[in-house]
């Protein structure tokens, strides 16, 4: 570890003011990041409780622990909370909010008040969703397919969808803030191609948030119109078209996959580079691949509709276009692997998560190729194969990256180090538990187990039990960090300014950073990931 001057009582963003008001009315992007962090941690564990109950119910073929009605609400609320209230805000709103301005040498985001507003919007949206949950829940699935959601479900569809609608504006405003910040607030010398790849990934994500989320908002308004006012839009009994909903929904929700996973890829760049002390191989290609994913992400929504009665030719076009996603994804994985070549690789906790990410994202990405292949998709769509695939990308990808990023920047955010042994152990447990939970689901899906089934034929039980057993291991992998992170806040050893010997402007300021980040706006003279210059400065 590289030593730095002791920083104990220096003024920083955490001790510059005290009291609830100083947090709830803060305009400091770092404090807002922590508000988000606390909020989405709560959402994550609530979504996790739903997941636990789902896996407990599925340990036996019969619907015995909970009724089918309750089961349907559990998987719906698990999906709604995890997608809209955890994964979408996860990395951008916490790590992105905290580090994007610092990484480009800015003192805050371009619109600090809008940043705070976007947190309040997430809180309001979350409150609406919570209200719906406690009032009786919702049972449409997180996809809200019509006409079930508009004309048939007797649950709290409107309250839940309204919550998502409001939270969507939080996402739009965060994206807007990032775009303007990256364009206008870069420090002198911080050219576009000197930006860390974390920033590039967030820039691409922000474009998706700003361009995609309004379509979701419009779609939900149409659902309100049909459900409340009986205006026929989606329900054929009212003269509507039910498949229209699926087009609109996936026009947002497919790009949303990249909203969730691109920031994770951004984190992985930082981790791989730091712990192999090498610039990311093919920097330009990796940066461009983030933008390519953002663009292609808007052209492939129809691959969710191969069996929906969409035309055969539309199916072929969407299948063809979907394979273009493979190019930027492959570029990222190959370049990360190549970065390790002749590096100086150390196995700190964040690097273990990065390795886990590459492994799981590789499997998640490659199984996406299965689903894009029309003839195969017909068999496995709406089965556990799809569930396994998107959990490999969202949980194996995004959450591994999020955990890796938290372990990487925790000393910077809090000024404290967590216990290394426990952290490595929980990284291992998470990887093991994840694979045991979700790998059997690929086989289940191929064998024909449909998703969203409260009860299932007994021949599927062996694989379901394996999956439930894996889930309990995975739960430990998530609970342990919650405990030792909390512990480290008070008892963790003091971390220096740059405990990993990393490049990047965030490691040139003290830990935790002062409220205004930089006493003097830095002048950038090097490319990103220039390790020779770091060494010179530290020495």
């Amino acid at each position, binding site marked *: 570890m590289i030593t730095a001057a002791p920083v104990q009582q220096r003024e920083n963003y955490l001790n510059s003011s005290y009291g609830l008001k100083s947090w709830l009315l803060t305009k400091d992007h770092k404090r807002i990041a922590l508000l988000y962090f606390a909020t989405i941690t709560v959402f994550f564990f609530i979504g996790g409780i739903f997941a636990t109950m789902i896996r407990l119910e599925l340990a036996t073929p019969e619907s015995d622990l909970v009724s089918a009605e309750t089961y349907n609400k559990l998987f719906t609320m698990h999906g709604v909370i995890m997608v809209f209230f955890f994964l979408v805000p996860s990395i951008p709103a916490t790590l992105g909010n905290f580090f994007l301005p610092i990484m480009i040498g800015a003192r805050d985001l371009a619109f600090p008040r809008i940043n705070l507003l976007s947190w309040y919007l997430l809180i309001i949206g979350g409150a609406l969703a919570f209200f719906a949950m406690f009032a009786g829940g919702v049972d449409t699935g997180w996809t809200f397919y019509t*006409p079930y959601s508009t004309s048939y479900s007797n649950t709290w569809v409107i309250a839940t969808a309204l919550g998502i609608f409001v939270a969507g504006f939080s996402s739009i405003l965060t994206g807007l803030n990032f775009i303007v910040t990256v364009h206008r607030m870069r420090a002198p010398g911080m050219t576009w191609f000197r930006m860390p790849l974390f920033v590039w990934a967030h820039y691409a994500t922000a474009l998706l948030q700003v361009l995609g989320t309004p379509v979701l908002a419009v779609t939900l308004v149409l659902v309100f119109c049909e459900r409340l006012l009986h205006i026929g839009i989606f329900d054929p009994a009212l003269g509507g078209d039910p498949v229209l909903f699926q087009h609109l929904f996936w026009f947002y929700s497919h790009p949303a996959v990249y909203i969730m996973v691109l920031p994770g890829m951004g984190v992985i760049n930082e981790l791989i580079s730091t712990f192999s002390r090498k610039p990311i191989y093919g920097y330009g290609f990796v940066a461009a691949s983030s933008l390519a994913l953002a663009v292609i992400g808007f052209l492939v929504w129809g691959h969710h509709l191969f069996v929906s009665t969409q035309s055969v030719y539309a199916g072929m076009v969407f299948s063809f276009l979907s394979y273009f996603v493979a190019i930027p994804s492959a570029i990222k994985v190959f370049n990360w692997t190549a970065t390790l070549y002749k590096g100086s690789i150390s196995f700190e906790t964040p690097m273990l998560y990065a390795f886990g990410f590459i492994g799981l994202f590789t499997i998640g990405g*490659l199984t996406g190729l299965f689903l894009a292949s029309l003839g195969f998709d017909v068999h496995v769509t709406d089965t556990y194969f799809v569930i396994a695939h998107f959990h490999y990308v969202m949980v194996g990808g995004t959450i591994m990256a999020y955990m890796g990023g938290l372990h990487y920047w925790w000393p910077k955010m809090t000024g404290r180090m967590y216990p290394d042994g426990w952290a490595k152990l929980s990284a291992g447990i998470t990887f093991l538990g994840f694979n045991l939970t979700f790998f059997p689901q690929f086989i289940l899906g191929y064998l024909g187990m449909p998703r*969203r089934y409260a009860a299932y034929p007994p021949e599927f039980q062996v694989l379901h039990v394996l999956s439930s057993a894996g889930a309990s291991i995975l739960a430990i992998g998530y609970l342990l960090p919650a405990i030792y992170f909390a512990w480290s806040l008070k008892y963790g050893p003091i971390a220096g300014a740059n405990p990993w010997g990393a490049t990047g402007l965030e490691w040139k300021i003290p830990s935790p950073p002062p409220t205004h980040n930089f006493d003097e706006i830095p002048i950038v003279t090097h490319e990103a990931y220039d390790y020779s210059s770091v060494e010179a400065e530290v020495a």
Partner: protein
Amino acid sequence: MGSLSFIPEQASNFAVEVDYLYLFLVAVTVFFTVGIFAAIFYFAIRYRRRSETEIPEATHTGMALEIAWSVIPFGITMVMFGWGASIFFKESRPPDNASQIYIVAKQWMWKLQHPEGQREINELHIPVGRPVKFTMTSEDVIHSFFIPAFRTKQDVVPGRYSTVWLTPTKTGKYHLFCAEYCGTKHSGMIGWVYVMEPNEYQEWLNGGASMGSMAEKGGKLFDDLACSNCHKQDGSGRCPSLVGLYRKHVQLADGRVITADEAYLRESILQPDAKVVAGFQPLMPTFQGLVNEEGVVQLIEYIKSLSPKPGTGPAPVNISTPAGEFKPIPQGAAQPAPGTSVPRGR
């Protein structure tokens, strides 16, 4: 129950094709996953940090390498695309000699009708070795017709017909699932498919106390709903004669020419104003609410039975198969050569 198997039963003409595609996809995945894992492990151990102060030299990006690992994987994915698309295309083109089964899905059951008149709920009996086409609609929400052993799945959407076809290749009992979430008892919307030897199937067809074929029931509905008052067979009514209409080209009042398929017939019964035949007034009232989806398919079978053209299905009216003898196909198959060329023309 159940030994753990890794390949579901293969019981349709598509099953083997899909499984070969699957094995190819698995092989590609294993190749790349093992390759990437091996490279990471090797690099991680070979280049592990040996001193805290070492700074490795930066490697320059090789343009050729970047292009190679973009283009080669993309080439492989194009094989996946072409292979998958060709199976999908085949799945979308039912052969002309496929027998027809109608399915009406509702929360939470499958209602099936055979043209011969047999009706089933959550059970489906079909003969092995003969192509069968399912024409499906829903009375309420979206469902999805999924038989894993056949590797087929098709959403069943209210307000429209969707179709799926296959040839069962192996006798046995297979799961039928609803694959699109449809409400509280979604996981109870399941059933069994029985693929039978042709003679057993014929016995089964004869066994049920048949209330007449679908076309006969449709004919009765046609009279009960007073359709026959206007749609006279000799064309003397106020509305067009329906004889020979099925699969024929129809000139519409707005100038379009469409093919009179099941979807058109259904629409014309429920929304008569949508596509008015050229030379006729939009006089027909809607039958929405007067006839349910099962009645609509019976009417359609009746209209099809008015077609003089053979070879367009199981020839519903003249299924006067001699008892015991299973010979429904040759009747239709005897004439398809002159028959099929006409309705297929553009």
